[in-house]
């Protein structure tokens, strides 16, 4: 048995070392969607001065080409890049942002950062691949942040155990991530294709014309399903009921411990950007649930030196909440994304002109 234990330890140690080697030097980033965008950003890093950053609402609501043309029409030069990643939750976004900042984009001056309502709020959400992605980072700091958030949120030991199991499972079984090799090779393929087609255009209703957008193959059926669901009268009725109460809900929202801990992360991100001379503008997107309200309040209370553009109000922006302009409760349709981009450009111009 001793001989077995010795050889097994030797094998496992060797395997872990090899995995670390692969993880650190050969295939350093485990998520293919992020990797692809990351790689494209690296290619364009000399030109980009504005970065859209956040989850799918950023990805689907704002078109960099249109945004650039609108700003240029007003004499403000802009070369923007949409780094929206579906379900990029806190604290993954900080991790990704740090990676972006380490690229040293020489012209980057503006970061349009979504106030991200996404967080791992229940065990079921943790099981979703895209949400679990953040823990795949095998980054101790981030894992601890996550643990802190979970600890604040989960009340029962059973829930905590589920969460711990899922995190461990992610860190062990998805150690390097199934997409590890994938990234490395696929990025070059994606780049070739992008150059040839002047960036890939797919899945029209959702993202057509969005510069640098790369379709995550897994998300296509999901969005189709979502859209199909949203066309049902019952879903639309539920949605209309939901948005009726949204403004009131936002007013009454309480700041939770989770909001505070996420606000800490935002504060840190803003500080990191400012130290590099990058101005942060926070965006609250037009989603149909008020989960982010407590976080917005907390950020406002902290009196940070950032502007907040707030689109989450059916009263103020009825066209965003018109059922015909929605892909689903949380996302605008493609034509409505043009509206959102125009509105965003208008708000940003107001800020720039004010200064």
């Amino acid at each position: 048995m001793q001989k077995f234990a010795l050889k097994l330890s030797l094998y496992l140690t060797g395997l872990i070392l090899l995995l670390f080697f692969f993880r650190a030097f050969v295939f350093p980033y485990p998520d293919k969607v992020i990797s692809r965008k990351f790689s494209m950003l690296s290619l364009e890093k000399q030109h980009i001065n504005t970065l859209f950053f956040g989850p799918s609402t950023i990805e689907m609501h704002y078109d960099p080409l249109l945004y650039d043309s609108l700003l240029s029409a007003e004499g403000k030069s802009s070369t923007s890049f949409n780094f929206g990643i579906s379900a990029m939750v806190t604290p993954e976004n900080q991790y990704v942002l740090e990676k972006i900042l380490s690229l040293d984009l020489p012209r980057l001056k503006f970061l349009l950062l979504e106030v991200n309502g996404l967080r791992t709020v229940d065990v079921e959400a943790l099981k979703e691949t895209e949400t679990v992605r953040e823990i795949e980072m095998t980054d101790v700091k981030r894992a601890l942040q996550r643990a802190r958030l979970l600890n604040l949120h989960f009340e029962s030991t059973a829930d905590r155990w589920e969460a711990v199991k899922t995190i461990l499972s992610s860190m062990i079984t998805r150690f390097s991530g199934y997409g590890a090799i994938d990234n490395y090779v696929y990025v070059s393929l994606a780049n070739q294709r992008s150059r040839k087609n002047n960036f890939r255009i797919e899945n029209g209703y959702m993202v057509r014309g969005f510069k640098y957008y790369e379709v995550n193959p897994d998300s296509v059926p999901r969005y189709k399903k979502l859209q199909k669901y949203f066309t049902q009268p019952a879903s639309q009725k539920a949605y209309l009921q939901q948005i009726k109460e949204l403004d009131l809900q936002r007013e009454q929202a309480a700041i939770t411990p989770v909001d505070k801990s996420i606000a800490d992360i935002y504060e840190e991100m803003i500080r990191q950007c400012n130290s590099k001379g990058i101005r942060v503008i926070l965006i609250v997107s037009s989603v149909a649930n008020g989960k982010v309200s407590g976080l917005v309040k907390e950020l406002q209370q902290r009196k940070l030196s950032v502007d907040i553009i707030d689109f989450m109000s059916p009263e103020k922006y009825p066209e965003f909440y018109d059922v015909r302009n929605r892909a689903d409760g949380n996302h605008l349709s493609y034509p409505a994304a043009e509206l959102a981009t125009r509105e965003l450009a208008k708000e940003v111009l107001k800020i720039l002109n004010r200064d």
Partner: protein
Amino acid sequence: MLFNSLHFLIFFPIVIGLYFSLPYRYRWGFLLAASYYFYACWEVSYLLLIIFSTIVDYWAALQMGKKDSRKKRRPFLVLSLGANLGLLLFFKYFNFFNDSLRFVFQEFNLFYDVPALDLLLPVGISFYTFQTLAYTIDVYRGIQHPEKHIGKFALYVSFFPQLVAGPIERSTRMLPQYRKNYDFDYDRVVDGLKQMAWGFFKKLVIADRLDVYVSEVYSHPDITFGWPVIIAAYMFTIQVYCDFSAYSDIGIGAARVMGYDLMRNFRQPFFGKSMAEFWQRWHISLTTWFKDYLYIPLGGNRVSKKRWISNLFIVFLVSGLWHGAAWTFVIFGFLHGMYLSIGALTMTFRNKLWQQLIDRTHPKLAILRDGVKLFGTFHLFMVSLFIFRAPSLDVTITLLKNALIFRPNTDLIIGFTELDMLIAILATCFLFYGDWVEECKGSMRKALTERSTAVRWVFYFAMGLTIVLTGHFSEREFIYFQF
């Protein structure tokens, strides 16, 4: 509990560690508790079904042991068959028959108001039911003495490495093993772990990767045309083999670590040169079960030709239904019955034809003959799986039609990346290479041990890295769990 889960990654080393640390007399009890825990991870309440089956069969067998003639034993056999098959019919087939009846009634505009049952199919019910049935039938036939130790009998019914998806073991093989004591044997443990690793490679790197493509095609039958449908058919054939044989490999390997020898369930099935040979290599434990407990009692091939053919059809129709409660499975069974019947009826003619075409005139082309046979067998099986995979007959028909429609600019890679495709192709080539080595040398693991230490360790590290870096860790269930 899934073999491909973190839960099992923690569970298995603990079980092995404790198993070898415990005195011999406590081991059966520990393994039984571990097996029940393993099963209870799905649904605690369904553990009662296993316990019920165990008690009924234990008691029925003991009663049969006291009787000196088959006639006197028969009521207890009927009781055991009734209890086990009753549970199986109720949980697995009630809704199927009910829906079929409803359809027939509705076709004739007749009132039918028996509601469908909202039941979760107990995982592995077909496997452990067949295993316990084999025991009581063997006791009835006098081949097996009734087991007096209820704990060891319960372990025979629920031994976790093979509880959920086989191999369907025989009491004559397993019960004597539970009476023995096994010490830690380095070579045996390492051999078992290697077999498990091979299973994980097949499941995580190949089967679950291919599942992404196959599911994408089968879930969008209306919009998938031409090559993707054909590619999916090939992929599913490989996927089923990898998925199911992976479970057997992991189970057999896990049992071997503890000292138990489970029967071989797959023997390079795609090297079968006829459908009859294929079934001697595929899911061997089920095939032999049907042979021993259904085909031979029906008369096997020692009856008139007509009866022989009908025996083949009966066996394969039941086998189809065993796989699942749906008409697609019935058709799957029917197709195989047809394959074997036609094969049996034309065997003399085919042999003569091959002799005239190749064996006598061009003996050097024997390899071509074998190639044609392998190709034919593989594709016949693939066609049957095409139906097997579809959730309904409508989907099968739609996909069959669409497979013949080739549209320009069709994207061949659906649901995953070019790299996924590349990995799938390379891994499948390696799988067939492994099967070829097994076919030629008997055992790939044995062939590997003949290599130098350096080569072996490089292979082990490469295997570990391949599994971790390219495996799909989404904890997808094994296909055969649904049966």
